[in-house]
């Protein structure tokens, strides 16, 4: 039923693949039989009106839905060919390799340094922590702004800086994939722009899946876009195609602002 255009994964195997993923909250179906492929080192955007299941789908990729006792996940999520929902897979290890950045910046009530160091510490990192923290902050384009005050509380930073701190924190555990749930929706336009530029840079090293309700943002930064509606995948394809000449009528209606 969904229109899935050809996704060019190039020579590399896809970073993630969802196969017939469904999520139920009690009797309500939040995600309905979604299958899609996330190519490596690309940005995939999930768009759709509020409540269409895009955040729920995103949370399937790193097993964050496990934390909600009422949620039931069916289907497979393949990461390097392995189904993440097999019983022998440890969700804690999954989350180290597939990181997540949330909608509202949520730094820990600790210093900037300790925020970034938290991930490596709990995962038993034994190397040079200063180096790891600096590297992560540089990758998140925040180092220049905080290098002289690493011991200050994270709450002293502005909203946009806090979100970049959260990104640095996620990168510090060296994940392969970074999931972003509307990372810029709580930020002002300048901070948003910085995050978008950052995503473009991060693409070189990481694979990024981003949920956004801002269509222009999806159009600006993503390589592939998936349109979801009421839990169903309606259309998935290269971003330029989705926004200049979509196949499905519902995609066309959403993208031109006729609903949602």
């Amino acid at each position: 039923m969904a229109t899935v255009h050809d996704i060019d994964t190039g020579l590399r195997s896809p970073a993630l693949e969802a196969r017939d993923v469904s999520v139920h909250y009690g009797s309500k179906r939040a995600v309905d039989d979604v299958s899609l492929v996330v190519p490596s080192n690309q940005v995939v955007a999930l768009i759709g009106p509020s409540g269409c299941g895009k955040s729920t789908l995103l949370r399937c990729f790193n097993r964050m839905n496990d934390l909600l006792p009422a949620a039931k996940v069916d289907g497979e999520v393949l990461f390097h060919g392995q189904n993440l929902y097999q019983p022998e897979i440890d969700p804690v290890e999954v989350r180290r390799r597939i990181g997540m950045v949330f909608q509202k910046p949520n730094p820990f009530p600790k210093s900037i340094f300790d925020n970034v160091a938290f991930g490596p510490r709990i995962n038993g990192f034994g190397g040079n922590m200063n180096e790891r923290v600096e590297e992560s902050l540089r990758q998140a384009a925040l180092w220049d702004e905080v290098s002289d005050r690493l011991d200050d509380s994270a709450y002293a930073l502005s909203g946009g800086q806090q979100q970049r701190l959260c990104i640095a924190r996620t990168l510090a555990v060296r994940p392969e994939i970074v999931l972003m749930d509307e990372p810029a929706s709580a930020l002002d336009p300048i901070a948003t722009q910085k995050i978008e530029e950052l995503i473009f840079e991060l693409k070189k090293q990481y694979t990024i899946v981003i949920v956004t309700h801002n269509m222009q943002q999806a159009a600006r930064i993503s390589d592939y876009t998936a349109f979801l509606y009421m839990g169903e995948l309606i259309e998935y394809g290269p971003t330029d195609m989705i926004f200049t000449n979509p196949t499905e009528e519902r995609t066309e209606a959403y993208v031109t602002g006729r609903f949602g």
Partner: protein
Amino acid sequence: MRFDERAEAPRDLGRPSPGDRRRRTLGTLFLLLCFAATSVGVVSLMVLLVDVLMDGVAQLDPEFLSSYASRFADRAGIRAPLFGTFWILLLTAVIAFPLSVGAAVYLEEYAPRNWITRIIQVNIANLAGVPSIVYGILGLAVFVRGMGLGRSLLSGALTLSILILPVIIMASQEAIRAVPDSIRQAAYGLGATRWQVTRRQVLPMALPGILTGTILALSRAVGETAPLIMIGALSFIAFTPQGVMDQFTVLPLQIYNWISRPGDDFHAIAAAAIIVLLVMLLAMNAVAILLRNRFSRMRSN
């Protein structure tokens, strides 16, 4: 005045309409009633305090604090109950704190949200309201006689611990619940186990609330008389307890004992003991507030 009338007749803001005046009067009336209610509480408290102070302050001197009880009021002191109160406070804290925090952590972070957990929750809330003398009876049966601990500090501490356990558990649960879920989500997202999330994020953030709850619960325990009477704390001892199995007495007990005797002289030293007790309670509350402020300042820095 109707909505549409407003557009035609611009009002002079300096001159209130009758409707405004009535609203304002009602508001002032309400304010006065609330103030009166507050005053009743404050004034009664002040009267009591002043009364106690007037009665007892003359008796307060270093000898009073260091002498043991005596049949003669002018030679009686609160050395034994002071030590007893201090010791029982310490022991109760050591016993109650880990048990309560552990229970609170389990209930908030680990327990599944099913009917069993709900029953436990409801029961804990109920236990907080049980009259303290019932705990005294429990202590007598289980600790003093059942476990053979006798009328010792340990029995007293165990009894008081169980008494304040529900209070600390509920306060700790509140504190843990107050930790924003976004912090937990972020920690889980980084690949933390539930234990790591609890120990490294939730508990440190909840600590001020837990400590405040603990100190307030302890200050309630300090004032408890009935349960300690039940388990057999004495009121006339001429020694300070040296070990946890020793017998003991506490300030409230001593106060009760002195008050029940005829004669103004004993009443006077009872008042003095009350002042000491109040000072202790005040100090504990002050520590609780200071701790809370210090932690929240650290947080917002």
